[in-house]
C-alpha cells in the first residue's frame, strides 16, 4: 500500500491485539453454549444477503455468539463465490434423469442395503395426458 507509511502505529497495534483476542475468545467459547442453531433456510438466506434489516437483526446477533453458525455462513459465502460463474444448467439430454422413484429406490438400496419400496407407495400418479408426454423420456 502506498499510504502505509502514514498509518498510525496504534492502528496496527490494535488490529493485532483484536485479532488475537477474537481468536482466543472463539477457542474458549465454542458453539456448545448456544441452545439452538439457525436452520438451513435462514443460514442460506442470510449468506445470500436476502434478508431485510428486521429479519437480519436476530440473525446477526446469533452469529456474533455462535461460532458454528458463523462458520457455516462464512463457508457459504466462499462457496457462493467459488460457484459464481458456474454453468448452472446441464444441457438437456446430456444427463437424462431416471424416474425419481427408481433413483431413490436405488439410493436406498445402496445406503440401507434394502429396497424399501413401501416408502414410495403413495407416489403420485400421472396427472393428465400432457404429463404423459412430458414424462416419456424419463420413464422406462
Amino acid at each position, binding site marked *: 500500500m502506498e499510504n502505509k507509511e502514514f498509518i498510525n502505529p496504534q*492502528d496496527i*497495534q490494535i*488490529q*493485532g*491485539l*483484536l*485479532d488475537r*483476542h*477474537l*481468536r*482466543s*475468545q*472463539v*477457542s474458549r467459547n*465454542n458453539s*456448545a453454549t448456544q441452545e439452538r442453531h439457525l436452520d*438451513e*433456510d435462514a443460514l*442460506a*438466506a*442470510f*449468506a*445470500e*444477503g*436476502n*434478508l*431485510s*434489516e*428486521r*429479519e437480519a437483526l*436476530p440473525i*446477526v446477533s446469533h*452469529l456474533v455468539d455462535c461460532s458454528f453458525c458463523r*462458520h*457455516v455462513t*462464512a*463457508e*457459504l*459465502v*466462499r*462457496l457462493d*463465490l467459488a*460457484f*459464481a460463474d458456474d454453468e448452472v*444448467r*446441464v444441457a438437456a439430454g446430456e*444427463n437424462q*434423469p431416471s424416474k425419481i422413484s427408481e*433413483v*431413490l429406490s436405488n439410493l436406498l438400496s*445402496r*445406503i440401507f442395503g434394502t429396497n424399501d419400496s413401501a*416408502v414410495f407407495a403413495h*407416489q*403420485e400418479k400421472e396427472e393428465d395426458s*400432457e*404429463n404423459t408426454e*412430458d*414424462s416419456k423420456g*424419463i420413464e422406462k
Partner: protein
Amino acid sequence: MSREAIQHENLFPECESLMVEIYERCSEKAPNFGVLAEHLKDSLCKTVRKYLQNNSSEEPTTEEVKNFLRQIQADDLFLAIACANGNERAWWEFDQQHRSYLERVARHLARTDIDAQEVVDSVYVELYGTRVVNGERVSKFATYSGRGSLRGWLRTVIWHALVDLHRASHDEVSLDEMTENVGEGYAHATFAKVNLGGEVDRINQIAKDRYRKATLSAIENAFANLDDHEKLLLLYYHVENLKLREIARLVENSESPLRGWFQRKSVSREKNPATRIHESTVMRWLEKSYAKVLKMFRTELQAVHKLSEDELNICMELATEDLAGQNLYRNLTTT
C-alpha cells in the same frame, strides 16, 4: 387450509390478491407440478410468520408483507412444494436443474469423490423424505421457505450433510472441531504466553502483569461495546478469515442490512444506494471499527485503570511484543 394460514389471511387480507397473482404466475410456468393455490399460500404464510413475525413484537404492516412476498423466490418455492408433494414432473425438473450442481458442490467440499457421492445420495433421500409422521411423508423440501434461492439452500443442505457424514465416522469429535474440517476451516490462535526470561526483575514483572491485565480487559470491553454488525464484520475477517472480496460479496445486495448499517450516515449511499461494494469499502468499514475499538480501548485504560498516556503506550508495546500482530492490509497482497 391450515388454521395458521386462515389466521394469517385474516391478519393480511390485502395480501390475498398478491398471493393469488404469485400462484398464477408460477402455475402458468409449471402447470404440471400439481401444486394447489392453497399449498403455495400455506407456504408463503409460514415464511411470513417465520421471518417477519417471529422475532419482533411489532406486527409487520401490510406494505411490509407485500414487499416481502414480492421478494420471495416464488418459482423455486413452487418447485420445492411440488417436489415435497412427490410430483414426478417436478422431481424430473429438479434433477435436471440441480443434480449436477449438487454434485459439483459436494465434490468441492468433500475430501473424496466417494464422500461426495455419498452426500449427494443421502441428500436426495432426505429431500424426498423417508420419515412418515401422522401418515404423511416428511420431505426436507418442506423446510425451504423461498426467502433465499433454492440453490443457496441446497448448498447449505449439502454442507450440513457433509458435517453429519464426518460426525458419523468420528463419534468422539465435537461439532466445533468437526466444522473446522469441512471447507477451509479455522485457524485458532490464543494469546501467546510470553516467556520474559528467568532474570526479569520481580517489580518490573508485577508492573507488566498489571498492564497486561488492563490491556486484556480494555480490549474485551471495547469489542463488547461495538454494535453487532461491527462485531460480525471483525469476526468474519479475523476469525473466519474471510477476504475483503468475500465480505463484499456478502453485502453485494443493495438491500443488504449489513451494508445499510455501515452506510447509514454515508452521503454517497444516499446519492446512489445501489453502488457496488468494493474491497476498499469493506476495508474502510474495518478501519472505522478499529478506530472505534481503539478509542474505547484508550478510554477504558485512562478512565478505569487510571493509566497515563505513557503507560498506555507501554500497554500497547507490551501487547505488540506479546502478540506480534498482523495488520489490516494482509489481504491486499493476495487479492
